[in-house]
């Protein structure tokens, strides 16, 4: 996979549902799941996002986006957090970075 980015989720009951939500939110890309038991690496090429709306579809309407942080042991790519979604992006050179 080129430019793999995405979350690394720790062991918990909700992993399957979070992966399902991520698949729903990224319909145009292949989401790859590497299961190492105590952690699951979820990755897609370039940019991966997950929305509170999708998480609530899979985990119930009471699930808040911030609770994803309790599962997020690590991640690949640059994270962006808003109140509706979290995304991980493959950044090319940052503004100000040397050529």
């Amino acid at each position, binding site marked *: 996979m080129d430019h793999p980015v995405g979350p690394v989720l720790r062991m918990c009951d909700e992993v399957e549902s979070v992966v399902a939500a991520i698949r729903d939110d990224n319909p145009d890309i292949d989401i790859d799941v590497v299961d190492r*038991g105590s952690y699951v690496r979820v990755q897609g090429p370039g940019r991966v996002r997950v929305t509170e709306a999708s998480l609530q579809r899979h985990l119930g309407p009471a699930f808040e986006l911030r609770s994803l942080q309790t599962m997020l042991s690590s991640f690949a790519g640059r994270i962006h957090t808003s109140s509706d979604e979290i995304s991980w992006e493959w950044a090319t050179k940052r503004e100000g970075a040397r050529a």
Partner: protein
Amino acid sequence: MTLLKREEWQHLVREVDWTLSYVDDEAVYPEWMSGTGKVPREAWAKWEEDYKVSYPEYVATQREKESSAYAVKAALQRSTAWENLSEGWKSSTKMHFGGVTLVESEAVLAELKMARFGLNGSWRNMAVFGALDEIRHAQITLFFGHEFVGKDPQYDWTQKMFHTNDWVAVSLRNLFDGMMVTSNVVDIAIQLPLTFETGFTNLQFVALSADALESGDVNFANMISSIQTDEARHAQQGGPTLEILVEHDPVRAQWVIDKAFWGSARAFAALTGPAMDYYTPVEHRKQSYREFMEEWIIDQFVRTIEDYGLKKPWFWDEFMKGLDTWHHALHMGLWYWRPTLWWKPTAAVSKDDRDWLREKYPNWEKVYGDKWDVIIDNVNRGDMELTLPETLPWLCSMCHLPCCVATLGYDNRWRVRDYPLKHNGVTYHFCTAGCRQIWWKDRDNLNHPTVIDRFLAGEIQPMDVGGILGYMGLTPDVMGDDPDYSWAADYKDRLIVPRVPVAGA
């Protein structure tokens, strides 16, 4: 009532810098603490974290994390889970408890320094969360380790280790004091959140949790992977700091990353390497140390620094070659000098172990197999005194780990080399070219004397193994030994070739 979205109000609480009028900026953010260096003061105004969190979110989320981690602990406390763990795996956790608990506490100081002297209000705000995180980590690690003190006195070193002069403590204090305490906050942000927490802690807290779970240690796997969810957030202080530093002083940015990377790589080779490739029972190893390093450091971390326009460190070739040697040699050294440890290092060189090692590290047998064979023969003959130390290993003046790195020479022979350096009339010795180079560039820093330096200066009395163990704080109920030597039984019928001295050999 409809609440505003966080992004609609957060700028009001993030951007809290104002122009000082009663005092100079330098009085509030002195250079020796804030360390702006060649970066113009105003450049820090654009510091912005990617991973945003508000205080109410922080508190609610941390409460969930704590409830969950302690619920698992409470449930398992009533089971026989701990009794059923292998001694090898328990040693991985003892090493972690002793080696990590007070580093978490030291990290509180680093975060507080950034919370006070960070050059942007948003940064200081993130660092407050970071300090609260690290208080949690010190407490949870101490508390989880404390549960087992009554069952095994080695767990007492969870709290005690960093207060001793054990050589591991001296080595880790040297590394982490430089990374977390003596640096200015810009260098702290590059060394600690960026290099250490975005890179290396993933290895000990996420990757190792895979081995923990396979080994049946649900409690430990749960604790460390929960801790790393905090790291994933506060580690994000590194990115925006690096982005600004790279723009104005890329040479400094590269050097600070390189130095922190190398120091971390040496320490992890000594601690995480043996835990993954030896102490975790072979049937429970998810991947080798090298494979975990490739997943978390080579792929993920290098991608991060290249994202910022930096290069791989100058020592990259030496580091990559070291992935096949450093931790194997250090494991053998830890085992041989086992009375100096607060855990029970299993040698883990049974035939099954060796098959696995050969598969993962094609040169393993050639470089280390014959040395272990000598130890195996001594164990099987009952010559245990020959397997125990009478002297000390030479410790590297930079990383304080034993000088034991074998490299392949042009004559196709593996040899442990010394990397000496003469400075002000003193010859220093180093384990690698990387350690020597970093020491030279940083030679005006205060470097802790190694335990060997202290021994030779007469600080350790009496000057024998007993005196050394006493100096390190080791008591007979704690000092390490192989848990059962059962791995040697695989070789009891091995044809032992007498070691005949050969002229010229």
